[in-house]
């Protein structure tokens, strides 16, 4: 059992990150903190994807000058890169919106800056 812990460790870290992120997204009223929560959730998912791609003893799939032995499939890494790029766009858009909300209402507390109800 003990020898599995190092391999499982990234998955546990991803689960922990996701748990903290969900706590922040659901319970924090500060919009900047909410965005930080979403960024943490994105990191948790990215960590999960990268951890999936790890194979003990595998080589990086760079075909020139590769040492003998099995190569890892680079799909999870490619997915992670794509996901990071997309999340940058999403976070940037959210931050600009919070700047606008602050300009209009003078507050970034989700309860106080709220206009639409019912």
């Amino acid at each position, binding site marked *: 059992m003990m020898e599995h812990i190092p391999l499982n460790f990234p998955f546990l870290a991803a689960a922990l990150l996701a748990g903290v992120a969900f706590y922040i997204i659901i319970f924090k009223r500060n919009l900047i903190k909410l965005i930080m929560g*979403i960024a943490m959730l994105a990191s948790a998912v990215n960590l999960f994807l990268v951890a999936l791609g790890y194979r003990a003893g595998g080589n990086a799939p760079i075909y020139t000058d590769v040492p003998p032995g099995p190569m890892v499939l680079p*799909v999870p890494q490619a*997915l992670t890169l794509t996901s990071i790029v997309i999340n940058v766009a*999403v976070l940037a858009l959210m931050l600009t*919106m919070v700047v606008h909300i602050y300009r209009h209402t003078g507050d970034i507390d989700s309860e106080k800056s709220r206009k639409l109800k*019912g």
Partner: protein
Amino acid sequence: MDFLVTNSPALIVALPLLAAFAIPLVNRAGPRVRDIFSLVIFSLIAFFVAILAVDIHSVGIHVYTFGATAAELALPGGYMVPVRIMFEVDGMSIFMGIIVTTVTLAALIYSLHFMKGQTGQARFYSLMMLLYAGMMGLAFTGDMFNLFVFLEIASIAGAALAAYRTNKADAIEGGFKYIVISAVSALLVLFAIGILYAQYNVLSIAALAYYMQYTPLDMIALGLLAGALVMKLAGVPLHMWAPDTYTVAPAGTTPMILAASYISMYALYRVTFTLYGGLINTTAIGWVVIIVGVLSMFVGVMMAVHQTDIKRMMAYHAISQGGYMLLGVGVCLAVITDPVALASYGRDAMNGGVFHIINHVFYKALLFMTAEAIFFRIGTRDTNKMGGLARNMKWTAGFYIIGALAISGIPPFNGFASKLLIYESVLKFSPVLSVIAMFVSLVTLASFAKVFYSAFTGPPMPAYKEVKEVPKSMIIGMSILAVLIIFFGLFPGLIVDTIVAPATNALIDQAPYINAVMGAVP
């Protein structure tokens, strides 16, 4: 022509993507050139959708593999699993494609005059094209990871469009809610994709469905996917973002964001029917879908009745109408393993639920457009401040009546055709559900009639004496939808046979979808 048909799935997504980034450049030649450029490009895309639809109707599933020597070559020689990115377009995908394309065309024409004189128009049309590309990609993709990518493209473009009027605090708030909900749900989808990839080492939907074992991990993935997509399609109890976002989005784009919600519904159906088809406990999942549907129907309409903001009222009705679709599909899912019940009413319920998507998008898009036409002329969405508008805005009033009768399920409009299918088939499954559905329709009629009286009839208000009818392009945009609503209402059998039945068959029988990629392996 063959070349165009073969490559149309890729062109339908690539053209709007390129156009989105070309529009700011074209804008330098003047707004008129930009408007014509957008219209011409979009007509070209609509033409591609049309030829693809005709081809799928006669030939069947289209597989488009990117980078392969031949587009149909899903499995290159020597490979057991598909390794390339691919689009897979079947009856259901092209059905969603037709809905999205029609609504976007109407919205684009409507926006030409609506946006006149506003700032940032080049970016507005860019985002519209981007949202269209995201939705079409989501409908056509045969790959779980691209499902996530296109979901995010549609979310970013949709949120930016909803928050387009940055000078208004409520618009920003509606856009912000949409992007938060979309970001969280897209990350949950990605998490589920990671779980599926970890077990089967493939990303293609067909290959995943082929290898699916339905382990406990797969159940977690299904839960994550279903939760995330129900949140995106605004099903009760995860509907709280929808009224805010639909209310504040500028006119032409509200129908598109509405269509984006139903693209998420399509993704939910693709996951439950194709990816997990035949493995899940369909009775239990079917009942979950039915309960979400009935809750959406009831809560949506009850919240709508007392609204005074005309678009907010329509937004709650959109949630309520989404419930009808889930009800029809849920009934089919609950009886899908029972061939007798499936033949007697399950397939009809499914037809009704799927047919209701296209009907609802058309009449709700028309209603949102009439609401924004009023806003365009008098500058308020509050029904208490309106009155006597039918005197000056005859076309808008007429379109509102068509939309309101269609949403309440009154013949001869299209809402009647799909609602009747749902009532009849659900009655055989469980009479109580059918009675609830009819009751919700009655309340819907009452609430639209109330708004009609307060907005369009009554003595002329002195403040609105000078109000004129909206410009021509807005009337043309609305009349496209109105004509389709009446046409669908007069010939429902024709529509069900040509586009709805292939869509439901594609969902109920998952084998052709898998075989198109994996080959006819037993």
